[in-house]
């Protein structure tokens, strides 16, 4: 292509061109961070990290490709391994609804001097904030299909998740109200205290005796409502996943480290409506939940002297992740839950 011949004629009597009238280009722009390191590594003794990394490679949990990505940094390598492990066990689905931290540490309470016994590390799962699930629209839909479906659905949904992480539901709120009532009982003006009406906001259908998983499977055969069928199928998948392996036992050394800690922070708040009494109790408890360091939701110990157990521990973590992912997908299907999705554009990973 040829360049256009340049105009040789001088411009007409010059006053202002359009560009002269425009404001000068702003020099303010988003600062570029290309040359800035987004991470700083503080390295002390990394022998335990190296030992664990070796075991993870041998047991097929970690991959050698991540070593280059970690720039040959053992701690970073372990972090990438954790990220990858979560990613292949439903990480994307988990992140849609849950805001969780997975930590590999030598102690259960950060900043504490009391570390795990020599050669023991822990994988812990904890929430940054509680996810939210709205129950009423689902309960109403299920009640139309069968009177025992709401309680069955709620019971199995909460149980499957509670097996791995803490769910805050109307039963926790009930306990809170009972406790508050006991505090106020002795006071002269006890009747003037207004307590959240958990009983009043709890659907009556939840009083029904829940069906067993087997009973639910049988009932499903008779359900004609397609949406209800999909919910039951998804719930059965969640139950199956949740029970795929045992949750690790709470050991004596864990108890010693967590002697003065609060209960775990809930990973999920299950409320009947957006601002019901359950949410009220949750908010109330939230005021004091961090006064003392809370226990982790899930603790999976790793013994460096038992390499086989480490592979098993990561498979256990995988089941916990898959359970959370299944719960997240189920909540996606539950009517009225379009709002609980977490936007993660540009999130730091």
């Amino acid at each position, binding site marked *: 292509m040829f360049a256009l011949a340049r105009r040789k004629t001088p411009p007409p009597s010059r006053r202002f061109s359009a560009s002269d009238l425009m404001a000068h280009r702003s020099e303010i722009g988003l600062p570029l961070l290309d040359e800035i390191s*987004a991470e700083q590594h503080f390295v002390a003794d990394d022998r335990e990290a190296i030992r664990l990394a070796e075991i993870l490679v041998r047991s097929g949990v970690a991959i050698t490709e991540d070593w280059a990505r970690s720039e040959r940094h053992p*701690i970073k390598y372990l972090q990438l391994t954790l990220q990858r492990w979560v990613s292949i066990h439903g990480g994307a689905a988990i992140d849609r609804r849950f805001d969780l931290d*997975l930590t590999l540490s030598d102690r259960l309470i950060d900043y504490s001097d009391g570390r795990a016994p020599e050669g023991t590390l822990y994988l812990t799962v904890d929430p940054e904030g509680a996810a939210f699930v709205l129950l009423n629209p689902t309960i109403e839909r299920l009640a139309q299909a069968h009177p025992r479906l709401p309680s069955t659905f709620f019971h199995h949904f909460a149980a499957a998740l509670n097996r791995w992480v803490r769910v805050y539901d109307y039963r926790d709120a009930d306990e809170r109200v009972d406790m508050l009532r006991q505090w106020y009982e002795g006071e002269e003006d006890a009747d003037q205290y207004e307590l959240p009406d958990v009983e009043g906001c709890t659907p009556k259908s939840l009083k029904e005796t829940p069906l067993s998983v087997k009973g639910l499977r049988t009932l499903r055969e008779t359900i004609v409502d397609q949406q209800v069928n999909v919910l039951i199928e998804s719930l059965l998948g969640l139950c199956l996943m949740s029970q795929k392996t045992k949750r690790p036992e709470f050991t004596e050394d864990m108890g010693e480290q967590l002697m003065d800690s609060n209960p775990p922070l809930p990973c999920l708040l299950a409320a009947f409506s957006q601002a019901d009494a359950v949410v009220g109790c949750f908010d109330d408890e939230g005021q004091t939940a961090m006064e003392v360091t809370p226990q982790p939701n899930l603790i999976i110990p790793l013994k460096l002297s038992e390499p086989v157990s480490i592979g098993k521990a990561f498979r256990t973590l995988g089941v916990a992740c898959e359970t959370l992912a299944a719960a997240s997908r189920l909540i996606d299907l539950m009517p009225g839950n379009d709002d609980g999705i977490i936007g993660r554009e540009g999130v730091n990973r």
Partner: protein
Amino acid sequence: MNAHVRIGDNRIFSLKHAVLVYHEGNRAFATLHEVKSRPDGPPYLCAGQSVTTGFLETLAKGLGASMATEVLPEHVLARTPELIAWWSRARRRLVFFGDGDAKGRNLNGKMYPHPALVFLIHRRELFVRALAEDCRPAANTRLKNAPFWNTDAHGRVCLGSMRVPEDVSVASMAGWENAYFASEFTHPSGAVHLTTYSGGFLGLWSELEGRKHFPARFLADSNQTLQEFVERMG
């Protein structure tokens, strides 16, 4: 799910925020920006917000410049986020000497009278001075050198393996004091005039055995007032 690895003191610090400072003459303001990262690109700054005093307080707290609100007992002399100084009355205390010195061995594990003392903790370093009189010192009170081994001319104590409390607070003062006397005095710390007693340090403590009170005339001057002592650290 965010993944973290915390083994021993190893840490990976991720860039989360940036503070941009804008100047015009001698005036300035600062904005705080969240840093976000993309899977395949450099991190970038999000829109900023003005830096508030609340943010600066949080930042200072994160850097350790914080102090719990405490009611100060009578024997506290000075308190800042970085130091706490208090005085302790003259009394008899159990003293341990290391077994590296034969004379010291004979003095080990006995009760001796002690002068009133001034303790100061600055960023987890312990300093000790002595007082000529058994009363609360004033800012211009001249301090004496603490007549102890392992304590240098500045009053700085070599902590060694001393098991000191984790925190520096009013509640932990007794713990620091106890830790000091529960450890062994093993050697002099540098060139320091520990006592005016003609028989020297070991002679002094031999002389003190069985006495009820510490003779203040045997304390060497530190050439420092209480005000100078705390100011030097502040």
